[in-house]
């Protein structure tokens, strides 16, 4: 009898392993996913869905497509009403809002600290979704910022690509003046109501609108001071083309009226949409501020997937995200090529698509560049009040740029408004 015991144990072990794999393989149930952008996030999710369903055909996945503002409206309404019905299983949340949702609705999102291997993701992404040492989401796309520029126009003004590498904003403006002089083309399109550039500047110095305690940190914030000064220099230098709104700004570089675009890498789709400019573009690192703490790497935008804690099919949702966004390198190659989606899943960045040379950028291996820069982005805690802060900044901006108020007044006014807004 005793001789059979080890064999029996091994058999039991084998059966258990077999049993769990068989059980694990057959997942079923329905999960609902809320996301926005029918040209970007939705097709990406659809691709992930298709891959997952090949292995788990019994899982039903519904992707509900709506505007970003609508996702936020619905999410807030349902979470605030305390209803158990009406929530998706997985929802896309913009990184700037991550802490806001996590702290405003405690317990609403699933703690995935032990479920996902976060070491595989870019550090700055993991940090922004951490609260009290628990990590909550699955990082998705990166908004690593870059300076896209027209090689031909810059060349006409006498600049080679290396001249744009790792420059400061002041140098950028100098170059812009020469470009304007020699070619007549504006260096960059500038929307004075848009706070995106400010965010890029701040994060490049590892700063944000708030200090470590979460209090508004504007007047004494050297990154913001430099940002305001740079905004003014840009506008006063005459190298900008004023645009208002997304369409005008995109149309400006599509029509060749601006020589550079400085924003998150996700703009690549809009740049490539103008097929006639193929082969004329190149990419350089982000300009840095005149501060020791500022580097040539920053971020604008980006979002991540979150699972709602009360989800009926939480396990399936976790398994789905784990199998796709946290493991499938090939998925990332495909979405890079088809949607221009640059993920933050580090193992995928050695893949073929990432190391390819892009003909639109005259053979530059842009994705490899983005991936490299992504690892250098200074992590920043976006805090709870990014939008309130943006609003405070850009409310005072027109008067400051027009010279009606000086820097001190502008910063003080912005800080006062912000303090008022976040009062509880």
């Amino acid at each position, binding site marked *: 009898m005793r001789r059979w015991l080890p064999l029996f144990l091994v058999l039991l072990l084998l059966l258990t392993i077999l049993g769990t794999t068989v059980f694990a393989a057959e997942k079923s149930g329905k999960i609902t996913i809320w996301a926005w952008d029918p040209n970007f996030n939705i097709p990406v999710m659809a691709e992930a869905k298709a891959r997952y369903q090949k292995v788990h055909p019994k899982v039903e996945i519904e992707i509900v497509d709506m505007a970003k503002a609508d996702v936020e*409206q619905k999410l807030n309404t349902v979470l605030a009403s305390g209803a158990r019905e009406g929530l998706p299983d997985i929802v896309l949340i913009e990184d700037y809002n991550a802490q806001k949702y996590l702290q405003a609705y405690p317990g609403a999102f699933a703690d995935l600290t032990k479920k996902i291997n976060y070491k595989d993701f870019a550090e700055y992404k993991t940090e922004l979704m951490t609260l009290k040492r628990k990590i909550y989401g699955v990082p998705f796309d990166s908004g690593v910022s870059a300076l896209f520029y027209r090689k031909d126009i810059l060349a006409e003004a006498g600049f080679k690509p290396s001249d744009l590498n790792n420059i400061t904003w002041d140098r950028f403006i100098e170059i812009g003046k020469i470009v304007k002089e020699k070619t007549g083309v504006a260096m960059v399109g500038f929307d004075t109501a848009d706070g995106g550039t400010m965010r890029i500047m701040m994060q490049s110095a590892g700063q944000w609108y708030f200090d470590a305690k979460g209090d508004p940190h504007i007047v004494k914030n050297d990154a913001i001071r430099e940002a305001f000064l740079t905004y003014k220099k840009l506008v006063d230098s005459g190298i900008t083309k004023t645009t208002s709104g997304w369409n005008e700004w995109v149309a400006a570089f599509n029509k060749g009226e601006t020589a550079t675009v400085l924003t998150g890498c996700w703009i690549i*789709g809009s740049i490539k949409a103008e097929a006639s400019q193929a082969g004329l573009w190149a990419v350089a690192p982000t300009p840095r501020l005149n501060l020791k703490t500022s580097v040539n790497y920053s971020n604008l935008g980006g979002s991540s997937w979150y699972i709602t804690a009360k989800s009926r099919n939480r396990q399936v949702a976790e398994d789905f995200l784990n199998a796709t966004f946290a493991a499938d390198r090939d998925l990332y190659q495909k979405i890079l090529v088809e949607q221009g989606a640059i993920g933050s899943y580090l193992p995928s960045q050695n893949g073929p698509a990432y190391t390819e040379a892009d003909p639109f950028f005259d053979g530059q291996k842009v994705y490899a560049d983005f991936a490299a820069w992504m690892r250098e982005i200074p992590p920043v805690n976006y805090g709870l009040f990014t939008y309130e802060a943006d609003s405070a900044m850009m409310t005072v901006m027109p008067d400051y740029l027009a010279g009606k108020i000086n820097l001190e007044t502008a910063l003080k006014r912005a800080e006062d408004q912000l303090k008022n807004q976040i009062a509880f």
Partner: protein
Amino acid sequence: MKGKLYLLRVLQYAFLLSCFILAVFPFFWMVVGATNTAVDIIKGKISFGNELIPNLNRLFSDYDVTGIFWNSCKISLLTVLGQLLFSSMAGYGFELFSSKTRERIYGVVLLTMMVPFAALMIPLFRLIVSFNLLDNHAGLILTSLVSVFLVFFFRQSFKSFPKEIIQAARVDGAGEFRIFCSIVVPAMKATYAAAAIYAFMTSWNSYMWPLIVLQSNEQKTMQLLISTLSSAYFPEYGVIMTAIIISTLPMICIFFSLQKHFIHGITGSLKQ
């Protein structure tokens, strides 16, 4: 004298014509847009292109447009019928059978019209969930069956209805509801036509509440579809324009068919 009249006429036509052109131009632009690609549209092209069929194809293949269109139609038609019935009865009741208590109630009712919807959204959502009407067209329709705007409008319109006719009908022995249905309503066709247009328009274009109540893709309305399409980083304007044209057609049909009730000729029946 004739010369003066002629000049007046010219000015009147010039004024109307300029209003007309200004009013209609964006619509024309939209129709042109539906035949172009998004890239051309933002560059400012105002000539017709060849992209109408591709845009339509893209729209219909990516979304169940017929289903969504039918959703909007169903919701709007039922809402309009309900609103016309209940709101006109209420307006009639407040005007014809006025009393001190009811005047006070009328005041409160009008006040509710002034509350911005955003304030009511969350409690109303809780209510709908507890009635189990989430993701259901009934949830939308039931909450919109009364329009305080229309109660107000109907009451104001009933003020100009000659009360003598109603008195005469009462003397003849007709019941109140019968008087309402067979005498008052037919005589107020213009009012009902305007009300129907308003009700349909409000319901068809409503956005925030359907956004909150409806969840799944099958229940969506045209407005939600258009919003989804417009919210892309790089919106496909050509496709959006085709969706908007499809969405605007019912409204135009309704206005066209109801507008003959604005034509003179009803007043004859009032003079008895």
